[in-house]
């Protein structure tokens, strides 16, 4: 089961990297980066399941937070506004 999950998530990561490299517009690349961040959260949760420690779930939670903030910042920049409006 662990081999299946790592294979599937690695395939998902390569599909996201394909969309990031070949996206026609900037918004496609932002979507790919957002999905890649959530895939990294999955990887970290599975490593926590294997090793039975909660250290990797801290990494998972903070990675989700940083991915969300980065996506919001890039989309506000793309919209042409500042952060406070």
């Amino acid at each position, binding site marked *: 089961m662990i081999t299946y999950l790592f294979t599937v998530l690695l395939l*998902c990561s390569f599909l996201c990297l394909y969309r990031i490299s070949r996206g026609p517009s900037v918004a496609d690349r932002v979507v790919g980066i957002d999905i890649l961040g959530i895939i990294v959260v999955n990887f970290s949760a599975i490593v926590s399941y294997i090793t039975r420690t909660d250290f990797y779930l801290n990494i998972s939670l903070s990675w989700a937070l940083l991915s969300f903030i980065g996506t919001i910042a890039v989309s506000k920049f793309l919209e042409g506004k500042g952060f406070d409006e």
Partner: protein
Amino acid sequence: MKGFFSLFLMFIGGLFNLFGCIGLVRLPDVYNRLQASTKCVTLGTCCILLSVLISGPVNISLKAFLTIIFILITAPTAAHAISRASYKSGVNLWEGSVCDKLKEEKK
């Protein structure tokens, strides 16, 4: 029983992640890609974190629960921000799209 249920949730979660990323590659438009990938990947991540939650001790369960709540709040917000920014920065819809309510609203 608990181990079987945990493995079943992991299987479902991996399958939903794969479907979301196939939708990210195959669909023709930014908005279609955003809808497919965000919904499926959020559900897959919640399934995998739920399997980690029901198979671990208390400290792992608590942090997995917090991560599930956080993902469920932030992923639709990020998708909404991306779609609004791409509409305002002038990304056109696919030519097979039938409905553009925001354009009718602005007239």
